[in-house]
């Protein structure tokens, strides 16, 4: 039995459908992420799970108990679902220790103190319990918000854009820290974000959301290497599509050579029994295009961006098509130069030609 079972949930604000027949499941201890552009319905989905909104259709089961369906709405305070907010929502009139102990109001003073100390340890702020929220940095406040949500031992933790108010360097460090804290606590969590780096750093499994639906629910690796739809391929990571001609179910010819796919390709509706001659757009990630001086395939450097360890080159092929290539940064080529390239595509991903 999954810890959380979202079944066919829909929700609308007025006539505006925000979440459409959305389903997914979460196992105990698993960290999931809903990733999508703003307005895709991800925050609404989080509020539906937390109990701040009521779904129009579908049901939500937590630990085997139905917490929401068409006739039933368990109030938020009964669900034992912790929440961490974008602005942290710490209580400014309470000390850090009182903030963390807030959800433990039904316990004895001694139990509260023990749990608060435990949580302060967990987030590395042991000697700051007497401070007030405004005396802490943004990163520390976010960790306190996490500790406050974890203290009452909720069934599930929800995090709404938890790192978006932090600067980028801190964001990366804290996202790993948060993952570590959640894993140590064995806590199942759902993170909502529009930042894929954050999603990939924290989550075991990611749902790419678009217009109220989940387009793909998969591991970060598969989202990058085996995107299920063109939108997922576009949204996750960088890359370009170049046109290719299908030779057989597992091989396709593109301008840079013949690609062998490890799984049969699906060309889409126009040719269910995929035969020769069908045309597909093939996804090429920057790491699929390798710079190789020995190669006799040449491409012209039209743009480059320095990223420290590597350059991201934009290369123009003879046909005029452009591809991206990630090259170790000691290969410093000038714009306009012709450089040798070859393909190293582990996972061939093609979608029907967009007409």
């Amino acid at each position: 039995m999954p810890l959380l079972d979202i079944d066919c949930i829909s929700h609308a604000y007025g006539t505006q459908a925000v979440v459409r027949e959305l389903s997914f499941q979460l196992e105990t201890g698993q960290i999931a992420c809903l990733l999508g552009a703003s307005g895709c319905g991800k925050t609404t989905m989080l509020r539906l799970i937390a109990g701040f909104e009521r779904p129009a259709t579908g049901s939500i089961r937590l630990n085997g108990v139905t917490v929401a369906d068409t006739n039933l709405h368990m109030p938020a305070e009964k669900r034992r679902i912790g929440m961490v907010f974008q602005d942290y929502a710490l209580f400014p009139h309470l000390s850090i220790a009182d903030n963390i102990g807030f959800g433990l109001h039904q316990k004895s003073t001694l139990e509260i103190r023990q749990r608060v100390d435990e949580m302060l340890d967990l987030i590395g702020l042991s000697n700051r319990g007497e401070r007030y929220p405004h005396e802490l940095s943004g990163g520390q406040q976010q960790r306190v918000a996490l500790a406050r949500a974890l203290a009452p031992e909720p069934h599930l933790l929800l995090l709404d854009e938890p790192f978006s108010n932090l600067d980028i360097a801190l964001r990366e460090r804290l996202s790993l820290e948060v993952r570590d804290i959640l894993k140590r606590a064995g806590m199942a969590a759902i993170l909502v974000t529009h930042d894929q780096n954050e999603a990939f750093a924290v989550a075991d499994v990611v749902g790419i959301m678009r217009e109220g639906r989940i387009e793909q629910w998969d591991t970060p690796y598969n989202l990058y290497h085996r995107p299920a739809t063109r939108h997922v391929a576009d949204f996750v990571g960088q890359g370009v599509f170049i046109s290719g001609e299908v030779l057989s179910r597992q091989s396709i010819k593109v301008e840079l050579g013949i690609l062998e796919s490890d799984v049969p390709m699906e060309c889409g509706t126009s040719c269910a029994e995929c035969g020769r001659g069908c045309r597909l757009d093939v996804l090429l990630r920057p790491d699929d295009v390798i710079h190789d001086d020995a190669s006799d395939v040449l491409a012209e450097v039209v743009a480059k961006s320095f990223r420290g360890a590597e350059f991201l080159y934009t290369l123009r092929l003879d046909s005029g098509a452009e591809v991206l290539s990630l090259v170790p940064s000691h290969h410093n080529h000038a714009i306009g130069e012709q450089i040798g390239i070859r393909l190293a595509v582990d996972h061939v991903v093609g979608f029907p030609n967009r007409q």
Partner: protein
Amino acid sequence: MNYHWNWGIFLEPVKGGDETYLDWLLTGFGWTLAVSLSAWLMALMLGILVGTLRTTPSKPLAALAAAWVELFRNIPLLVQMFLWFFVVPELLPRELSLWVKQDMPAKEFITATLCLGLFTSSRVAEQVRAGIEALPSGQRMAGLALGFTLPQTYRHVLLPCALRMVVPPLTSEFMNVFKNSSVAFAIGVLELTFQARQMQEDSEQGIETFFAVTLLYFICAFTANRVMALIERRTRVPGQMAGQMAGHQTT
């Protein structure tokens, strides 16, 4: 100008009595304090309740609270005094109406306090509502997500922050209560303004009289201001009011 100055008038006996004019003014001052402080207490309790109800998710409660505010805020205070004093008793059941008109003790005082209290409660309610609405929406959700019911969330999260935030605007309302209490003279409460008019007619020393009255009102309002400033300093939400950050113990 041939005004005859007489600053000693306050200690002179009133015409046809053994009190001094000072006694009159001090009695008036006492009633002013009694009306104002009772009305303020009532306004605070009702205002916090009504202001809170306006922010609840319950539509009927919020509508009721909104109607309350609009009713008491949009009618001039003087007209409200007359309504409570002359009109409302007529609308009561016959027995009660008779009792109110003939036998109710301290009728003027009770009517004035009720009227001023209700009028001020609508203004307090608006400040409280603004304070609650100024809080980030995450505060309410955070309280609920931590297992607090909505009333508990109001009690332990929203009101403690909102009420501290609205102390400065409430200061003005508190000062206004003293000043507005002067309207009670219109229905015959023997408060400061009433006594001043009486002393002016009786003694014909209008300038001295109103100088003293001005001073007494000023003392009331200024004391209210200082008391509220003290409350503001004592209850400040840590780190929320600019300019006083140094007041924190950082050791």
